[in-house]
């Protein structure tokens, strides 16, 4: 209870699902030690934290930001540039974190102070513009960021797959890669639990009051711009930390893996599908979305080929694995409309939308 900050899942089905996801993620290195399964599992961990930080904004303050991938990218690039420039050392990781996280916070502060005074809709537009400019900037400043190719780098000795701790643990080799996975796993879990604490603190209640009625919150004497900016900075720091983990896992940072607009859409989809304003929704949304992305796409490919062989018009194009986002977009619109509370809301049996 203490670790959940007094905000338990409040639904047996939801609890079982969450426990299943967490146990599965914790056990992946032993159950499915293959590269693909490990990649999927660590991506779920990282995105669960990233989406949770976005939920702090969208679900708890009701502000839509399109700049969240920018912060994610700042974390990724900071660690990548540091390790690339300074060589694979722990000091480089420390420098990357020490530069990346404050930079993200500072940028969030700037954007917040500049544009949070205005309505949500204005904020959404401004963040979209800023994020797109940042993306262009990152792909153009190739001397620093490696441009479109991004930056590949080496991790410190301890975290490399070559560093074997236990050669054969029931047929599984425990190595530096395993250690990296658990760093990702526990760091993500810590961030999500931290966010859960934040939203259940008095500060979190103020955020929700602002979301429900900003005017009234202001009339009650809360400096809403301060609260919103603070939430924005916090979300940015968590997003940047998720970016750090992402770069460490991939040993690479580039526009496509850490900055693109497609990632922003993925985050939006995950938070809506999982359930806005619940935090648990982030974990579920990330797990469901990423599993579907990795395993359903293959299914679409099979269906597309079958449709092509059957000589059906249009269907092969619509079912092509690259058109995966088309179906997700439809699912997204449908879930905003029909299930605004997402999977978590459904499992909790809430029929009334929260916002």
């Amino acid at each position: 209870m203490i670790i959940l900050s007094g905000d338990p899942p409040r639904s047996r089905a939801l609890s079982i699902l969450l426990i299943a996801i967490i146990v599965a993620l914790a056990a992946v290195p032993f159950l499915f030690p293959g590269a693909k399964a490990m990649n999927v599992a660590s991506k779920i961990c990282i995105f669960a934290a990233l989406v949770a930080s976005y939920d702090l904004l969208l679900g708890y303050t009701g502000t839509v930001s399109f700049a969240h991938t920018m912060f994610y990218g700042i974390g990724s690039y900071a660690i990548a540039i540091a390790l690339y420039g300074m060589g694979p050392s722990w000091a480089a990781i420390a420098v990357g974190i020490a530069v990346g996280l404050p930079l993200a916070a500072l940028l969030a502060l700037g954007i917040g102070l500049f544009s949070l005074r205005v309505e949500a809709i204005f904020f959404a537009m401004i963040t979209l513009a800023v994020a797109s400019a940042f993306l262009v900037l990152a792909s153009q400043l190739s001397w620093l960021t490696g441009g479109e190719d991004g930056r590949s780098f080496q991790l410190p000795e301890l975290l490399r797959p070559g560093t074997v701790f236990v050669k054969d643990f029931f047929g599984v080799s425990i190595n530096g890669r395993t250690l990296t996975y658990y760093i990702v796993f526990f760091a993500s879990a810590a961030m999500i639990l931290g966010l859960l604490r934040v939203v259940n603190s008095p500060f979190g209640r103020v955020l929700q009051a602002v979301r429900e009625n900003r005017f009234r919150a202001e009339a009650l004497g809360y400096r809403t711009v301060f609260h919103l900016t603070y939430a924005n900075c916090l979300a940015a720091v968590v997003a940047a930390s998720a970016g750090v983990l992402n770069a460490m896992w991939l040993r690479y940072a580039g526009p496509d893996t850490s900055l693109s607009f497609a990632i922003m859409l993925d985050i939006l989809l995950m938070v809506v599908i999982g359930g806005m304003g619940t935090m648990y929704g982030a974990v579920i949304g990330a797990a469901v979305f990423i599993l579907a992305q990795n395993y359903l796409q293959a299914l679409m490919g099979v269906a597309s080929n079958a449709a092509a062989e059957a000589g059906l018009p249009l269907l092969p194009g619509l079912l092509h694995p690259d058109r995966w986002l088309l179906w997700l977009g439809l699912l997204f619109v449908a879930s905003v409309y029909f299930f605004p509370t997402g999977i978590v809301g459904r499992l909790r049996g809430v029929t009334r939308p929260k916002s």
Partner: protein
Amino acid sequence: MTDLAATDALPKPPRDLLPVFLPAILAVAMLPLVGSGSSWVTLTVASLAMGMMIFIMASGLTLVFGLMDVLNFGHGAFIAVGAYVATLVLLPLAGWVQADSLWLNLAVLAPAALAAMAVSGALGLVVERVLILPVYGQHLKQILMTTGGLIVAEQALYALWGPQIIPLPLPTSLRGSFIIGDIAIAKYRLLAMLVGLVVFAGIQLVLARTKIGLLIRAGVENREMVEALGYHIKRLFLGVFMVGSGLAGLGGIMWALYREQVHASMGNDLTVLVFIVVIIGGLGSIGGCFIGALLVAMVANYGGFLVPKLALVSNILLMVAILMWRPRGLYAVTSR
């Protein structure tokens, strides 16, 4: 209509004209920096042409917001759809496009533009009914729904036309430039400016002179009172939304011809530009949108010439500067 000579008039408040002169001031200020007069003319014409095209795309967005407080994040989809629909007319009739006759060229361009506007406008009808009406008045859901719509539209374009870039050559008689002395002015840019001016004048005329225009302006100020006078503002809104979508489609074909290519991602890219324009102009203001479009285009062109590196973020810098000066844009609309 009753014509009454006003026996008296109230003193008019000083008109806020500074923003109107801003593009001109900027252009003049750039002259010494650019140095060469002929480059300056070329850049200025390029800015005006680009600005007019962006204005055409953005005008619908700003009106829709002003009238009903609805911001369509999927507006870019109409732009891309317009461009793709144009290829349906222009590519099969490539013979006419390539013919060296202005009349044949226009005879194929006009139906292409009309088709682009019609399809985008019709799509606007669907989007308004399916995506916007159900979440009317809820900003958060509006943003999410229309963003979802943008994804679906973009992906549907990929599915229908494939992911490759479709080349769309300019009609023969619109290629090349008029040469006056050492100044070259691209013919297509002149056409773009002309169309932009016609659209701007048309919108202003409708808003100032027709009953529909009066209703739109009244609705921007006070929706409820327009309804209490007996007008169905949602029908009016649907009309404005469809016209705005159609104009985005027109902007789409113009932009595609300007770039001489069509790609589904153009909607996405232009959305950002269009958003900056309507923010700068003041959400809901047509005049502000026009000036904003010119400023954005000027900063892009002069900036790209003078400091190419800066061009990437120049629009953001412009937006920040304008919002520092006027936090609600150049012309803030009264009620918001």
